[in-house]
């Protein structure tokens, strides 16, 4: 009898709180998006599952001694996991299109206006009762506009760990929604004629250029923005491993097994921050709203910058590729390509959009560095 009552008291049924149930439903929602809708499944699947596990009553998976506790403090609180992912992403990135047409960097810069405008917006939300974002909070939220998951998680873990869960959910959800968010903005800001513009074929890029580029990039981060050095540095290490061609086995491991292992843990660790008290509040709604704004502003800034550049450039520039400047590699570039093909069936923009696309990765890492230096 005593055993049965002890067992009953140890069940989830006897200990559930409403918040936990809701957060488990949120976790199920993320799993649904990941599995049924293929929204960034590599991160949303483990993240959704982590959200379920962390909200199990009694089990204490995120308390001292629990698996998710160890994962979070070993890998996310320290910043190690996002940096290793960034190394792997670097080893997967080809800067060729950007080196062939470096002006595309301006598009990657313009799209970061999404970040800084959102920062302003986050502070404006303080007018709403129940929301009180500090500058650190606002900075961590604004980085969602960078459309770069590891950068957002890295910055949030440094500036606003208590908002980490909501920020990661927003960042990855909107990255998955890029094909839905971007096209109307792109169509609204461009004429059909502009969307039809075909761009000149890219010049050949030599191996030496590709090897020196990551070194130059990290050197600039060192000189001008050391706060961005961990992110930019690990990214460039991965890229150098790939392009140097002398450590193929390391490069292959960095972009396959290592990034896979870290991705599982990163997802679980981020999911472990999706507890009811951290997520179920007005601030989360604010973050979700701001994230959508950030993406939209970033997309618009990129497109408008490209329109402007097209006016002054000798070589024609299709404004659609400006939208790829928000990063969200390679989804945003594919969206540019698709909208371009709609207007002109012979207009293959994919390679051209890869330039602003990877420039956007650099741009948001730089923006993160600025925020760390000035607000952190």
């Amino acid at each position: 009898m005593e055993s049965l009552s002890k067992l009953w008291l140890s069940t989830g049924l006897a200990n559930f709180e409403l918040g936990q149930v809701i957060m488990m439903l949120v976790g199920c929602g993320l799993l649904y998006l990941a599995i049924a809708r293929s929204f960034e499944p590599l991160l949303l699947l483990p993240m959704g599952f982590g959200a379920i596990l962390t909200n199990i009553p009694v089990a204490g998976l995120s308390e001292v001694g629990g698996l998710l506790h160890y994962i979070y403090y070993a890998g996310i609180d320290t910043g190690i996991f996002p940096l290793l992912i960034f190394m792997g992403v670097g080893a997967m990135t080809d800067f060729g299109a950007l080196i062939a047409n470096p002006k595309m960097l301006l598009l990657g810069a313009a799209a970061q206006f999404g970040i800084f405008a959102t920062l302003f917006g986050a502070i404006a939300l303080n007018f709403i009762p129940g929301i009180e974002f500090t500058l650190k909070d606002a900075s961590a939220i604004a980085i969602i506009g960078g459309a770069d998951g590891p950068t957002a998680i890295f910055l949030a873990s440094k500036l606003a760990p208590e908002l980490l869960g909501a920020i990661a959910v927003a960042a990855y959800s909107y990255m998955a929604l890029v094909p839905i968010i971007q096209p109307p903005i792109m169509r609204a800001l461009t004429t059909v004629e502009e969307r039809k513009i075909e761009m000149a074929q890219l010049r050949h890029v030599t191996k030496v250029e590709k090897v020196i580029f990551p070194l130059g990039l990290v050197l600039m981060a060192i000189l001008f923005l050391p706060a961005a050095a961990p992110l930019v540095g690990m990214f460039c290490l991965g890229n150098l491993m790939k392009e140097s061609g002398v450590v193929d086995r390391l490069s292959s491991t960095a972009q396959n097994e290592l990034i896979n292992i870290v991705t599982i843990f990163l997802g679980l660790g981020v999911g472990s921050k999706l507890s009811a008290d951290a997520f179920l509040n007005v601030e989360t709604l604010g973050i979700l709203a701001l994230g959508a704004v950030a993406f939209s502003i970033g997309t618009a800034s990129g497109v408008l910058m490209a329109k402007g550049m097209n006016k002054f450039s000798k070589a024609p520039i299709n404004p659609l590729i400006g939208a790829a400047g928000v990063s969200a590699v390679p989804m945003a570039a594919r969206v540019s390509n698709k909208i371009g093909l709609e207007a002109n069936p012979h207009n293959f923009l994919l390679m051209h959009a890869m330039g602003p696309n990877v420039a956007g990765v650099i741009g948001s890492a730089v923006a993160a560095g600025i925020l760390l230096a000035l607000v952190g």
Partner: protein
Amino acid sequence: MNNMQQEFLEAGTLMLVGMVVVFAFLGLLILFVNLVLAKLAVRFPDPVAPSRAPSNKKNNKKADDGTASPAIVAAISGAVNRYRAQHGQSSASADNSLPQNKN
């Protein structure tokens, strides 16, 4: 409300400084590519096939020898697939025969 204004001012400054620095940084990177890399590209051209458009190195490496017809490829690939399904280990043991570098 004064506090609010203060925060707005800070956020506005951040926005301004941030965008300036982002453009400055990426702008300098343009200079780096145009001045440094472009020169390097001239001084150290790729040893072979400089006319080929930038594309995936690995695919090139694989596609450039032999000229078997698609039909033969399909026939063989079917056989290879079936062979692999039966001898699942083979690909793992091929990994073992990688040149083994001593670290």
